């Protein structure tokens, strides 16, 4: 639903058309789809699988099943075998985040959306594991790039500082970093192969990356939701001083504040996704705010859970560090919170 008469709202000129709410809540169909995703991801990737990957590294064997179920098709245009919009995609990616899915699902969605923004969509968008490298200067066949969540990717999308977007094949050897923060989402050194497509600079980089930022933001909201829920569950069973620790007001307030921050992030993601889907001029600014807010919220939730668990949360055996690692690895990708808040505040102002 696009209202082409809606002007870019700035901090100084909001409008009653901003009362448009219909794309902020996913359709019933998508909500059901996301609920199914939650179950399936939990079944495919229980924490035992994630723990094992800390020793053995991630595997791609679940990827084809994920593609078959349609999770990689959401938010792609019909002409490329997709359905729904970015507003629908974020519901699925939040579930991927919640399950700490150890596949480049979110980053492939981010890369695909970036290709689409640059007019480089292609028929294998839904099936190709793709990395995204922003700030790539002088990327060319044979050069080596550091790739976020790059261990299993078969293609790379690069975005140069001036907004040139390229799609590269990947030379088979990928070297995963030695001490990955999150072994299930490790950075990899990748050698670029053939340049498959390219678009010259056109739109501003922050426009090109708006949808990608929304994807990563949705993933972070999921990670935050997982950790908040786990923290609450712990507070509901752990007793000290003769009562549940969750009955103490100090604990309640920490949890409440984390919940508020997470809903703030979820709202920013929903608003940014709707703006991207509608082609609204607000998309750029909202995507910056969504990524910033979700990074903060995810870190806060994972920090809170660590605090609530006490020493138990600092063991390898606990599931806690899986989420801590995921949040810390992901938070700075496509810009950390402070940076993006500065960019959002600077947006549209004389520099």
């Amino acid at each position, binding site marked *: 639903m696009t209202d082409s008469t809606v002007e870019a709202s700035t901090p100084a000129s909001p409008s009653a058309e901003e009362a448009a709410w219909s794309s902020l809540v996913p359709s019933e169909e998508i909500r059901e789809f996301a609920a199914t995703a939650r179950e399936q991801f939990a079944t495919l990737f229980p924490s035992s699988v994630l723990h094992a990957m800390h020793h053995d590294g991630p595997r791609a064997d679940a990827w084809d099943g994920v593609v078959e179920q349609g999770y990689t098709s959401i938010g792609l245009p019909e002409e490329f075998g997709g359905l729904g919009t970015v507003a629908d995609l974020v519901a699925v990616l939040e579930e991927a985040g919640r399950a700490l899915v150890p596949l480049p699902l979110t980053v492939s969605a981010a890369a695909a959306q970036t290709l689409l923004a640059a007019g480089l969509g292609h028929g294998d968008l839904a099936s190709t594991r793709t990395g995204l490298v922003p700030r790539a200067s002088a990327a060319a066949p044979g050069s080596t790039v550091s790739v976020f969540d790059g261990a299993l990717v078969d293609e790379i999308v690069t975005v140069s500082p001036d907004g040139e977007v390229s799609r590269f094949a990947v030379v088979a050897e990928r070297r995963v970093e030695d001490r990955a923060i999150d072994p299930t989402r490790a950075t990899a050194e990748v050698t670029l192969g053939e340049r498959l497509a390219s678009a010259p600079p056109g739109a501003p980089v922050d426009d090109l990356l708006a949808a990608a930022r929304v994807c990563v933001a949705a993933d972070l909201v999921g990670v935050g939701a997982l950790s908040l829920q786990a923290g609450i569950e712990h507070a509901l069973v752990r007793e000290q001083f003769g009562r549940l620790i969750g009955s103490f007001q100090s604990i*309640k307030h920490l949890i409440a504040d984390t919940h508020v921050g997470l809903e703030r992030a979820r709202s920013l993601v929903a608003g940014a996704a709707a703006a991207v889907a509608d082609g609204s001029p607000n998309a750029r600014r909202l995507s910056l705010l969504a990524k910033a*807010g979700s990074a903060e919220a995810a870190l806060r939730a994972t920090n809170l859970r660590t605090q609530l668990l006490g020493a138990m949360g600092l063991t390898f055996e606990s599931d806690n560090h899986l989420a801590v690692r995921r949040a810390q690895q992901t938070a700075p990708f496509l810009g950390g919170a402070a940076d993006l*808040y500065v960019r959002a505040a600077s947006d549209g102002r004389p520099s």
Partner: protein
Amino acid sequence: MSNDHLAEYRAFLDRVLPADYDGNAREFRTDQKLRREFQAASFDEGWLVPEWPRDLGGRDLELPEALAIRIEGALRRAPRQMCIQATGVVAPAIRALGTPEQKERYLRPTLRGEAWWALGMSEPGAGSDLAGLRTTAVRRGDEFIVNGQKIWTTQADESRWCTLYVRTDPDKPRHRGITCLLVDLDTPGIDVRRIETAGDAVEAFCEVFFDNVVVPVENVLGEIDGGWIVAMSALEHERDMIWINNWLELQRALAPVVARDDLAPHQLERLGRLMGDMEGIRLTGLRSVANRALGIPDALPGILKVFGSEAVQRGAAFSLEVVSADGLARSEQFDEVLESFAATIYGGTSEVQRNIIAERILGLPKEG
């Protein structure tokens, strides 16, 4: 979403507001005649409570359409009602729980702005703990005899009417023996005293003393000993106007900051974060509207008050800091700071809000 109603409302504003109103709203803030006439005209043309049924003065609009109308009014800085709690809290309560006679007697004058109401809830010993209130109402035939005191009562000195929360049964557990009475403040035995506030920017309030005040039994709103439900429903109404106003207040607080070209990076970061708060308030409010419109269980209102009120405080403080860059604090922004203090206190303090979020939304157990 149809924009027809919005277009019609805009035409109404253009017709009813003075020609020089837009851009000069601040000047008209104290124009009581305009404010009263505007409210009456809004009600008469169905714009005051547009989601209400036509026979009660509304236009039967769906919630999102009514919301767009309210946002438009707020954006145009339309003249504020003289007594917002009357239309925002009392009228919905009377509509929901009043007898036919009470609705007939009070609804129209209240909505039209002719009957003003004070909310008699807090007492010196009962603020956050409203259930601890001690103003008593003893039954004598077909009357109650009321004794006690209320405080922080906004506009009690200007209102004819008061929704008064009293203890009618001292033997029942705290919130079970409370009744809501509709009280005529001209009744003998009532003494209203205005309290001087810390500054003009702090909203005026009063203390009200009740000395053997006679209130007819037919002035009970809802059930005898059923006043707690009235109080709780009162707190839920107008939830949308609160977040809309927080959103716009934050916008206005940030306007002088946004206009500057000399912001340091750390100030840009804070500005950006406050923009995130601003959009976060707006989008959370709209998600809540969407949930309600679609019949999806909605827990978002519970976070909006604490989130919105604290964001406004941060915004006002930041704005004062930025405009005071030369070392001299500016009074206009200080007024915004002063005004922002009350928002985390009334209608359930931020601390209480956090407890409610933790207990009712997230399932944590009560303390005792």
